[in-house]
């Protein structure tokens, strides 16, 4: 097993599949009356969050607690971090506390990679800047496999602000490793340069959502911040929604079996309409549930729970 989970690219197909299979076992725990395993008893997991992300933090916290780990939440707000403590000094503090794993969310791309140099424990990237969010990609892959029965050969459209999306980068890397084909869709201003060469050969790019929809098994809508229009990435929220938002008529262009995903939180009316978000195709609530199982699997495997 790998030591850290920093990027979707850290996982080969076997390791990724092992995590997804382990997550499926973990999911059975959630159905029990007592949702707890003793696997990580006595181990310490630190949630180090430099950005507000209640849903991700709670998901990791639930995952660690269901494995009986001791959980320390270290939020940047109201802590030594706001007093100017450096990431390295914070890392040394966590090291001194004996953290076995550090789950880190940070606004700067690559901060988890830096942290991994300074702590002995495992580092899990819970979202870094505009770079990656590998556990989100794992829970997305888990959700696709649960709904559609497989990943190899699936056609997945990832739609929206790819440029700033850590979800998109991790998904392209992981899904390609697992044999799916990814098409990135969005206005050209929000598709980064050289994306196929940068991430995974075979990744397609399209600027035309309508032409892509009839041929996909999965459409994953990314959150788009309205403020992007202030930087001229697109002229207005209304034009963005009209060209790249997923509404009822567009949804009906999808094949019958296709599913609609969103990492949340949603901008209803921007990239997705309520009709779509609340439809039977939508996996948005399942993704949240699956997130806990996948993060249990990641912590369990990284901390060597299977060897104890």
């Amino acid at each position: 097993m790998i030591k850290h989970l920093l990027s979707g690219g850290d996982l080969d197909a076997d390791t990724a599949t092992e995590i997804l299979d382990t997550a499926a076992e973990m999911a059975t725990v959630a159905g029990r009356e007592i949702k707890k395993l003793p696997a990580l008893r006595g181990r310490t997991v630190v949630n180090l969050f430099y950005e507000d992300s209640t849903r991700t933090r709670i998901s990791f916290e639930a995952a660690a607690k269901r494995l009986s780990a001791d959980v320390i939440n270290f939020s940047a707000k109201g802590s030594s971090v706001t007093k100017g403590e450096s990431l390295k000094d914070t890392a040394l503090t966590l090291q001194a506390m004996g953290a076995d794993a550090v789950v880190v969310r940070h606004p700067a791309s690559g901060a988890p990679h830096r942290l991994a140099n300074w702590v002995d424990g495992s580092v899990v990237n819970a979202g870094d800047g505009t770079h990656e969010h590998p556990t989100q990609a794992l829970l997305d892959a888990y959700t696709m496999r649960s709904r559609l029965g497989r990943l190899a050969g699936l056609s997945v459209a990832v739609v929206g602000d790819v440029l700033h999306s850590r979800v998109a980068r991790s998904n392209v890397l992981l899904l390609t490793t697992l044999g799916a084909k990814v098409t990135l869709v969005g206005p050209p201003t929000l598709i980064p340069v050289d994306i196929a060469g940068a991430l995974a050969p075979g990744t397609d790019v399209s600027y035309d959502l309508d032409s892509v929809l009839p041929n996909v098994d999965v459409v994953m809508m990314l959150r788009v911040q309205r403020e992007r229009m202030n930087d001229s990435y697109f002229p207005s929220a209304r034009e963005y929604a009209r060209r790249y938002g997923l509404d009822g008529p567009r949804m009906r262009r999808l094949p019958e079996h296709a599913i609609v995903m969103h990492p949340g939180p949603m901008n209803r009316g921007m990239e997705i309409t309520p009709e779509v978000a609340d439809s039977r195709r939508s996996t948005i609530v399942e993704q949240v549930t699956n997130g806990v199982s996948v993060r249990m699997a990641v912590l369990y495997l990284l901390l060597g729970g299977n060897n104890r």
Partner: protein
Amino acid sequence: MTAYLITSVSVVGAAPTDLLIRDGVVAEVGPGLSAPDATVVDGAGLVALPGLVDLHTHLREPGREDAETVESGSRAAALGGYTAVCAMANTSPVADTAGVVEQVWRLGREAGLVDVQPIGAVTVGLAGERLAELGAMADSAARVRIFSDDGHCVADPKLMRRALEYVKAFDGIIAQHAEEPRLTEAPRCTRVRSPPGSA
């Protein structure tokens, strides 16, 4: 003043010869030189070059003496083969007045390891808004000839034109840090804490 005799050294890649240094100048060049009073440096296998000259050095003094001083940077330069360095203007305070460039120039003389030639800022405070007193810096003891806002681009085309024209009066030159700032700034909604200064 001690004399130095460098024996069998290749001058800029030519066949080995001897070099006698006396009274601040190269006194003699040729094979088989002798100078009983000179300290001998065995130059066999070595190459002599005119001392290196760096057009672009940040010496950090005044302002960030924890990172470098004129003296420590001068020592690094000498160890790198340099005999002259041009010190960039993005110090704190900025080298945008005769007073600051003279201070840097004087510190260089005191260190005595390389000639420190200050570069003056093009605009006041490197802010890119109005010209610094370029003529005063040119006329100062530091005799500034190169002007640069390095770390920042003189992005305003009118200001750049004026700067280029103005320094002709004293044979000055504008050294541009070529970076269109609007094409390199962070997007507004992902902007992270930006460090002050640069380069």
